[in-house]
């Protein structure tokens, strides 16, 4: 049983004062384990907020190094971090923000080989990746392992997110059965992204992780939230879990994980 030090009572006082959190909720947060895949535009704010919230164990997965073109939106990385691995850079900020938090770093790319073993140690997964092979892999692995996760995507001035609780709610493949064809995907360099849009979306994903840990409110399940920051329009489209989903339906055709071949967006790193 974790007991609170005076410093922790002070640090988390604005959580503890909330009716829906309290001492019990903060305890759940401190016992929680969240994995963030991709410490980039989405993962940066998620990692910072979850560390600030005192999530007991946070895993961060990323194979990349910090590049100058990342800094416009990936706020966990600073100019002094250029050429550091993103996991090391993020680790340092998270520990500096909250030394209570245990941070596991995985300097690697998730693959069909390694992903199930990694996610198994966590209560909730945040998808902060930048490409569809990874997004489908995370969806498939989380459904197979029964681990809830938050899907997130951003493009130009828009973002979309949904939370998946395997076996209970619609999965990503219920609405997007197959990855888009290679030639249909605009590259990051072509599309661009308003930096703050990444922060808006990553923060929503972190909120979902915290709500899942404290079991309060209702998750963004069976719905796709999309927003357009240009008009500041937010829209929630109801989704349904499909009986004929190739992954989570009654007669699934996807029975094991496979790496999907697709060029990730080409950008100078």
């Amino acid at each position, binding site marked *: 049983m974790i007991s609170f030090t005076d410093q922790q009572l002070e640090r988390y006082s604005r959580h503890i004062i909330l009716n829906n959190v309290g001492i019990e909720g903060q305890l759940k947060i401190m016992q929680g384990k969240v994995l963030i895949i991709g410490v980039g535009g989405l993962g940066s704010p998620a990692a910072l907020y979850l560390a600030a919230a005192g999530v007991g164990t946070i895993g961060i997965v990323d194979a990349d190094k910090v590049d100058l073109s990342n800094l416009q939106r990936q706020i966990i990385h600073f100019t002094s971090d250029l050429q550091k691995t993103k996991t090391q850079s993020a680790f340092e900020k998270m520990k500096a923000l909250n030394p209570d938090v245990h941070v596991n770093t995985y300097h690697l790319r998730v693959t069909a080989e390694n992903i199930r073993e990694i996610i198994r140690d966590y209560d909730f997964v945040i998808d902060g990746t930048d490409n569809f092979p990874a997004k489908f892999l995370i969806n498939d692995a989380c459904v197979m392992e029964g681990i809830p996760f938050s899907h997130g*995507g951003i*493009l130009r001035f828009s973002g*979309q997110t949904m939370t998946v609780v395997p076996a209970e709610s619609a999965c990503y493949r219920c609405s997007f059965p197959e990855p888009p064809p290679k030639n249909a*995907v605009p590259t990051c360099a072509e599309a661009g992204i308003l930096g703050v849009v990444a922060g808006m979306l990553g923060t929503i994903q972190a909120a979902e992780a915290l709500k899942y840990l404290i079991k309060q409110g209702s998750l963004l399940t069976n719905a*796709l939230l999309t927003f357009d920051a240009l008009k500041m329009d937010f829209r929630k489209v109801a989704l349904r879990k499909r009986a004929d989903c190739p992954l989570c339906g009654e007669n699934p055709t996807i029975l094991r994980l496979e790496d999907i071949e697709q060029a990730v967006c080409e950008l100078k790193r």
Partner: protein
Amino acid sequence: MIIYVNGEPQEIKQQPFTVADLLVLNQVEMPEMVSVQLNGEFVKREDYQTIQINDGDEIDFLYFMGGGAR
């Protein structure tokens, strides 16, 4: 007839009117990048040409959105 596309009313004069027709009308250039829901039900790509849209129907285009890390 009036239909609702992503929550916005749209007047349609063409009859009959299929999901494929709607994609053309809304100038969806890359149908591969969109999933279609009709009254909350997922529509399979192979049914776009045959499934008809009727007065009052609600259609949602769900776009693939990648991005995030790099």
